[in-house]
């Protein structure tokens, strides 16, 4: 145990320390304090964690007796989680003030949840993967119910909690069977043991782990909880939990499927991808609530991402990693705009409420348009290259059927995203929906999200190269 061991968990350490400090200061503050200071402290913590990740990238390798492994794969996902946490914290100042929530634990929970998500991407031991998964899940269960007086928020939290724990039990049973099949709980020894032949137990273990993680990433047929939970949870929390924990769960799935070389997953992933894309997009078509619509769209995006899983190793994994990054940025951005517009008690969340937004708040509407276009996959946005790489990886691996399903689905998806844009720009405004001025913090966070979305769409080369390197590190 030497200094490099600590460097290899430095971002997590930073976040834990700041999360604890926030939790400890919170009860000392007077009741009427608006907790903005704690929010700033949390922001500093998440930015320091990003800096620590860059520092950590210079020290690749395993640490803590083969529990964690730092490689470009884990660094990439650390950066996604850190970026999402920082933007969500920035966007929450105004949201909490508008909703009248004066609880500093909110920021502490975001930081501690981020610890779990970051650990999920660097853990190479199933014990640690399980603990990290639970750290991130338990924090998000609480965050989903943070509008305590609103019945829908409590209900959303309850549904998320019950189905999340149900899924965790499946994941654990899968881990137990994998342990029984190989005699180890560490990713690389498992891979070594499976290479000599996989017993039937390993297949069952793989399938059960996929069920557990399928719930976490909201892929069909394990997606039913998503629309309800996203509709009821506070909008900035949805910005966090529809992106960062999902990316982390995809990282775990990549590690188990590729690094541990779990057997017999191809058709499971294929069917889940096709089902997620189709059910997600069809479900989104009929929604009137924007949060619910984006919840169905996030199911569809999980499907596109799984397409990349089914493709061949190197390019498929790098396409999946790139997609996770692009999706995280654009989806978080879209939900942050929704959080600003929702106003007190989240009153304005229907698509009709967005009528005339283009005229009354041109800046906000333009930003939302960028994110929606990126979610469709229009060129010069990150969403375009993400989809392009996923489908070209699928085609290169001769997955013609899956690619056709994916492209048809992207066309269907364009309809419901464009409908929001049409309502914003072409429909007469309803006069009773007020527009609040945009605070600086929110502006900064939205600018960051837009800049990254466009950057990924115009100059994807560097990020893609890094993703490719991550993919190579993963299967090495």
């Amino acid at each position, binding site marked *: 145990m030497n200094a490099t061991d600590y460097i290899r968990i430095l971002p997590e350490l930073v976040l834990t320390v700041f999360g604890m400090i926030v939790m400890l200061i919170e009860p000392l503050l007077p009741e009427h304090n608006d907790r903005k200071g704690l929010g700033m402290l949390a922001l500093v913590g998440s930015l320091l964690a990003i800096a620590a990740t860059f520092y950590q990238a210079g020290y690749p390798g395993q640490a803590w007796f083969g529990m964690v492994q730092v490689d470009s794969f884990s660094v990439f996902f650390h950066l996604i989680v850190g970026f999402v946490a920082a933007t969500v914290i920035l966007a929450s100042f105004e949201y909490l003030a508008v909703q009248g929530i004066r609880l500093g634990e909110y920021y502490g929970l975001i930081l501690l949840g981020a610890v779990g998500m970051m650990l999920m991407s660097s853990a190479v031991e*199933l*014990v640690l993967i*399980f*603990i990290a998964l*639970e750290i991130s899940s*338990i924090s998000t*269960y*609480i965050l989903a*119910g943070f509008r*305590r*007086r*609103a*019945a*829908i928020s*409590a*209900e*959303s*939290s*309850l*549904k998320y*909690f*019950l189905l999340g*724990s*149900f899924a*965790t*039990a499946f994941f*654990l*049973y899968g*881990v*137990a*069977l994998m*342990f*029984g099949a190989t*005699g*180890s*709980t560490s990713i690389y020894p498992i891979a070594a043991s499976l290479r000599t032949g996989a017993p039937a137990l390993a297949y069952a273990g793989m399938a059960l782990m996929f069920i557990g993680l399928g719930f976490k990433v909201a892929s069909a047929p394990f997606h*039913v909880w998503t*629309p*309800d939970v996203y*509709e*009821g949870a506070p909008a900035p929390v949805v910005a966090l939990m529809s992106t960062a924990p999902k990316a982390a769960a995809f990282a775990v799935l990549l590690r188990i499927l590729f690094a541990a070389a779990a057997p017999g997953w191809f058709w499971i992933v294929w069917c889940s991808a096709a089902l997620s894309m189709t059910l997600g997009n069809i479900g989104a078509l009929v929604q009137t609530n924007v949060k619910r619509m984006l919840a169905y769209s996030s199911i569809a995006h999980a499907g596109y991402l799984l397409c990349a899983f089914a493709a061949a190793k190197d390019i498929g994994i790098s396409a999946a990693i790139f997609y996770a990054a692009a999706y995280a940025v654009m989806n978080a951005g879209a939900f942050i705009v929704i959080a600003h517009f929702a106003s007190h008690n989240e009153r304005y969340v229907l698509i009709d409420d967005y009528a005339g937004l283009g005229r009354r708040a041109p800046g906000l509407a333009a930003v939302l348009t960028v994110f929606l276009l990126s979610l469709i996959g229009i060129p010069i946005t990150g969403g375009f290259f993400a989809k392009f790489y996923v489908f070209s990886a699928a085609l290169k691996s001769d997955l013609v059927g899956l690619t056709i399903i994916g492209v048809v689905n992207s066309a269907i998806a364009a309809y419901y995203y464009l409908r929001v844009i049409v309502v914003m720009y072409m429909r007469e405004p309803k006069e009773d929906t007020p527009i609040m001025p945009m605070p600086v913090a929110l502006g900064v966070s939205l600018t960051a999200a837009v800049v990254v979305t466009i950057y990924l769409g115009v100059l994807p080369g560097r990020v893609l190269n890094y993703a490719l390197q991550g993919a190579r590190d993963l299967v090495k």
Partner: protein
Amino acid sequence: MVPLSYYLVLSAVLFACGVAGFLMKRNIITIFMCIELMLNGVNLAFVAFAAHWHRLSGQVFVFFVMVVAAAEAAVGLAIIISVFRTRETLNVDRVNLLKL
């Protein structure tokens, strides 16, 4: 000596009971208890495999599962209380503001 398969069958039965209860029961607390039952089925499998492989890591895993289950119970009961405060019912069929 009791063979490994006996333990595995028992653990699968416990897990299946938990799943069946989760899907069929209507009281939130009972549903929560069914999840605990599933976790205990998993624990039994871990211990049985640990004895089979003569490796301690399976038994250590069980400790972590128990600790995490306790943490989950603390948060879960708090969530159930907040649902009861807003809806005054513990029947999942009546916690239905968000259409499923």
